[in-house]
């Protein structure tokens, strides 16, 4: 994985020194809050409901064990002993003090991490498939391109004051695990005539106006990545609206002007910009690629794994849900659930972070990943090490066998922390997970994604959930709307609203009724919730959710 060179280190150290001085000037009164706010946001510092919040980027979701230990150190030394992993492969600390934040940033810098552009109207952390470099179905590792984009976009003078924030996601597989169609720009590595390039998707996004991205370019040669992205951004900078915050995202720009106009203007800009690139970026890319060399996977028997799988039902249940197919023989991808039933989705304690860092170092070629689904991944594990890994995870509350199941819920921080939220998300997720765990139904229910947002901005991706929950404030009371049939994969779709919302104490029973309809209607255990929904449509679910309305119609 990428290791900072002298330039990177010096740049980050200088940037952190600048911010330290800015914090000092705010505290001594030289800067007003209006002057300071854009500066702190550029460095990932928010002011939330109860405290400051520091958002640290985990670039394209990849980190090594030393970096994970640094995240643990921050949690322990300057926060309340835990961190919250987010849907954009970042980690958030909910309780830092303003005076401490420069020290936190310096500690991060020493480990090759930063909080730059994790907020503000800039190009944010480029997210990637969390199985990148490991997945059996992958064409090529997308992370060198993500790192190239990170270096290009960091402190890019033209893109520091965009009309609105800008999010890029990249995948190297046709199976989309990075939700690329719900990003401002989505990139899929594809192959044409034996050459690597990108399918470029633009104008996707969730929030108050959810849209699925459209194809801007079917095939973009690898060498044209940066000039083409620069062209997309240049057109956005010119065409994007700045009169209305809610119409400023590129999805609105593309929608209002039409994809054909956007494409024509991008291609025109590209003609002018391409010549400014003299190949230096491609040299840099080649250098970056050396950092992402595939580990030398060992060849060994899997007898210990086979024996544990045959004899230990707890291990088997975990292996069945939390492992994914690896590209190398005898290996597996491990998803560590940080969603124990009843716990806050995405939270890990400092101790858990250290345990995962140790496992990464000992068994996973010193690599860890953060998924947009708020879990942690050991991307390269030999199967014979799995029984030992599972035993360690179990000892630290990290062996929950629920990946892809109903309790593997995405939830934004909601009104428990976020200044923008209109309702709580976390307790709803906790109660759903606890309820279905008590019913002992979740393995029987199978693959079902619930995603919860505590406001219309949709950080919890509720639009692309099989069952989406949106928390709102209705006349001073929390109220939860439900959407069904959303899809976050390559067949991306926005869910459909069921109807009127539910009160806080009605939302878990409502989810239960939806699941009951599915269980009653599915054609065997093989048919997933989403498949059943697509086959039978909304009506049976509506009938279960709103029996009174049905009576009136009858």
């Amino acid at each position: 994985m990428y290791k900072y060179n002298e330039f990177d280190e010096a740049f980050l150290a200088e940037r952190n020194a600048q911010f330290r001085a800015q914090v000092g000037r705010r505290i001594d009164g030289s800067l007003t809050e209006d002057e300071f706010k854009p500066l702190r946001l550029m460095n990932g510092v928010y002011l939330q409901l109860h405290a400051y919040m520091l958002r640290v980027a985990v670039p394209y979701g990849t980190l090594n064990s030393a970096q994970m230990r640094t995240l643990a150190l921050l949690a322990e030394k300057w926060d309340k002993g835990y961190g919250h992993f987010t849907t954009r492969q970042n980690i958030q600390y909910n309780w830092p003090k303003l005076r401490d934040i420069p020290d936190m940033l310096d500690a991060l810098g020493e480990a090759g991490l930063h909080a730059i552009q994790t907020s503000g109207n800039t190009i944010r952390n480029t997210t990637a498939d969390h199985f990148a470099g490991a997945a059996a179905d992958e064409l090529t590792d997308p992370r060198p391109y993500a790192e190239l984009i990170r270096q290009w976009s960091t402190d890019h003078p033209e893109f520091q004051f965009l009309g609105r924030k800008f999010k890029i996601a990249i995948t190297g597989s046709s199976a989309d695990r990075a939700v690329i169609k719900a990003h401002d720009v989505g990139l899929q590595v594809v192959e044409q005539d034996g050459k690597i390039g990108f399918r470029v998707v633009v104008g996707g996004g969730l929030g108050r106006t959810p849209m699925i991205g459209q194809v801007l370019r079917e095939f973009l040669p690898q060498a044209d990545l940066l000039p083409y992205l620069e062209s997309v951004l240049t057109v956005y900078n010119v065409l994007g609206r700045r009169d209305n915050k809610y119409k400023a995202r590129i999805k609105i720009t593309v929608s209002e002007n039409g994809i054909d106009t956007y494409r024509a203007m991008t291609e025109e800009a590209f003609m002018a910009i391409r010549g400014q690139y003299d190949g230096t970026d491609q040299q840099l890319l080649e250098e970056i690629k050396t950092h992402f060399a595939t580990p030398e996977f060992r060849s060994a028997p899997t007898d210990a794994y086979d024996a544990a799988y045959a004899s230990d039902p707890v291990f088997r249940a975990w292996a069945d849900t939390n492992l994914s197919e690896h590209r190398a023989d005898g290996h597996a991808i491990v998803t560590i659930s940080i969603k124990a039933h009843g716990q806050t989705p995405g939270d890990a304690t400092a101790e858990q972070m250290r345990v995962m860092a140790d496992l990464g170092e000992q068994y996973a070629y010193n690599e860890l990943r953060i998924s947009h689904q708020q879990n942690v991944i050991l991307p390269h594990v030999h199967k014979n090490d799995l029984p030992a890994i599972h035993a360690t995870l179990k000892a630290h509350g990290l062996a929950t066998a629920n990946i892809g199941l109903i309790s593997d819920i995405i939830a934004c921080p909601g009104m428990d922390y976020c200044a923008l939220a209109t309702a709580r998300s976390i307790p709803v997720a906790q109660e759903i997970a606890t309820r279905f765990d008590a019913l002992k139904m979740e393995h029987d229910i199978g693959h079902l994604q619930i995603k919860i947002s505590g406001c219309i901005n949709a950080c919890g991706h509720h639009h692309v959930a099989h069952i989406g929950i949106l928390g709102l404030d209705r006349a001073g009371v929390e109220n939860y709307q439900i959407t069904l049939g959303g899809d976050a994969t390559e067949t991306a779709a926005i869910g459909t609203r069921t109807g009127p919302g539910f009160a806080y104490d009605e939302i878990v029973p409502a989810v239960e009724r939806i699941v009951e309809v599915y269980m009653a209607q599915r054609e065997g255990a093989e048919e997933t919730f989403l498949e059943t929904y697509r086959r039978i449509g909304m009506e049976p679910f509506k009938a279960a959710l709103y029996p009174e309305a049905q009576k009136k119609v009858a």
Partner: protein
Amino acid sequence: MARAFTPKVITANDLLEGDVIYFTADDSWTRDMASAELITDEADAQLRLLDAEKQNIRIVGAYLADAKAGPNGPEPTHFREDFRRTGPSNYFHGKQEAEANV
């Protein structure tokens, strides 16, 4: 007809700690909402907000929040202000934790 004015408190976040604070009748700040000044006059509210904002060197984002008179002092009328007064519901952190440690 104009909407009737509902009582308010002035609240903000502390610059250094980041935690929730309330403006008192003697122009200082308290961490206890019950000790805040309950403002019942609309014209007064705007003037008091200006008073509060004079202290912008040590506070962030002062605003008027709906409140009502309770037996021990001002109380929130909206759940958002209730969370700000208490802390998050998933951990015993924030003000609820601070109070327990008194």
